[in-house]
């Protein structure tokens, strides 16, 4: 029980079906499994039946804009206080809140999106949302009144599972995270009372362990991974190589920018 417990190698970690690469891509794949349903939800929740975004004629698939929101926990939004608010909500309530974030964004920009008719206008707009729409005052109230329940997500997923079993990853479900028993979170793991503990619990199924890839001279990246500590607790450890520090954290950049870049870059690291 003493000392740092070495996390088991990837083979033992139960990850959602298809993905052995990106922890967050796993999450996304899971989400994508419910994605045709997301369009349904977009329709239902924002009454956007005529929304261009979900209209086939423009061939704009939700994956074209939703990926960065989900994989980077909305850190691509221009307003940092909004980012923090959304992250808190996700960390506290589980990742069904990702859907709420997406729906809230679509709702606040629906009027302007509906006025556009070309993919060249729509995609850049929604990928680089203007601050006036992403500001805390505008977006967060909408987020608060947007709700997606676990039951809904489970229902959509079971429909998909019935229709197309091969594409739906198994192993993680849409539930508010509780004590999970997977290969490396042993039975004694308590539910943490701290926010960080909850963050970790919420992300454990997908972020189970991130591997440090060999770092070459030419290509150094900031790394984030979960480290197991005694007693089954874990903590986030930021590993920033010298080069990456110079590259990402160079003087003159705001702390916010540095954190965004660190988070986003770390999302594309391989899981081994």
């Amino acid at each position, binding site marked *: 029980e003493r000392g740092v417990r070495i996390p088991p190698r990837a083979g033992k970690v139960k990850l959602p079906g298809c993905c052995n*690469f*990106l922890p967050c891509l796993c999450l996304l794949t899971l989400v994508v499994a419910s994605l045709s349903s997301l369009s349904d939800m977009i329709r239902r929740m924002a009454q956007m039946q005529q929304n261009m975004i979900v209209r086939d004629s423009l061939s704009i698939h939700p994956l074209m804009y*939703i990926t960065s929101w989900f994989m980077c926990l909305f850190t691509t939004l221009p307003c940092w206080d909004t980012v923090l608010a959304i992250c808190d909500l996700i960390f506290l309530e589980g990742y069904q809140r990702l859907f709420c974030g997406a729906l809230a964004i679509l709702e606040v920009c629906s009027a302007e999106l509906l006025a556009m008719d070309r993919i060249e206008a729509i995609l850049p707009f929604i990928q680089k949302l203007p601050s006036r729409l992403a500001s805390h005052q505008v977006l967060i109230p909408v987020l608060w009144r947007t709700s997606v329940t676990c039951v809904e997500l489970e229902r959509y997923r079971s429909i998909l599972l019935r229709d197309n079993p091969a594409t739906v990853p198994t192993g993680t479900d849409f539930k508010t995270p509780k004590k999970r028993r997977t290969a490396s979170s042993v039975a004694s793991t308590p539910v943490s009372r701290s926010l960080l503990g909850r963050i970790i619990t919420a992300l454990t199924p997908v972020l189970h362990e991130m591997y440090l890839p060999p770092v070459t001279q*030419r290509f150094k990246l900031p790394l984030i991974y979960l480290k197991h500590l005694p007693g089954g607790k874990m903590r986030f450890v930021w590993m920033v190589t010298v080069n990456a520090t110079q590259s990402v954290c160079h003087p003159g950049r705001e702390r916010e920018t540095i954190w965004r870049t660190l988070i986003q*870059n770390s999302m594309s690291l391989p899981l081994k």
Partner: protein
Amino acid sequence: MAAQGKKEHLYKILVIGDLGTGKTSIIKRYVHQFFSPHYRATIGVDFALKVLNWDNSTTIRLQLWDIAGQERFGNMTRVYYKEAVGAFVVFDVTRLSTFEAVQMWKADLDNKVLLPNGKAIPAVLLANKCDLASEGFLGNINQLDDYCREKGFHAWFETSAKENIGIEEAARSLVAKILENDETIDHPQPDGDGIRVGEEDGRAPKKTKCC
């Protein structure tokens, strides 16, 4: 078409290749004449538009789709590839693994998107970061000609987004090929009353390093 016989084309072009090979930098250089040494991962897909005045009678709007390098491991590329008519496959001359991944990307591409006539979409191979080529693994550079022929690439170019080398040429080569395809697909029987793009009188750009 439009007034004065001005013809406008809209083409969707994919930029794919492994993580950190410089796809985003190439697009930034090509579209915004800008280079940043700071790495920032693309997540999902990015989108840029480049308008080319191809010749006096033709304007071409290129939609450049910058696909994140990790996407090959997900199942989502099909969505991004849809309706593309050309592709750049990028590797980093200083990292062999990115070159080995080229054929995986090409296979992924050919599996998921085809031209309306059922043929593979034209792909151009970019050997990026050629300003660092002295540290690279590419010894005899001519062997890439054979590689391209074997793997079905239309052409290859050495590029450097940092030093602005080869990108314009590569784009011209790909667009020329796309226009050529477009003609054979859109006008199967050339009866002379459509507006031709003017390839037959030699206005097509030189095709450098084609294989």
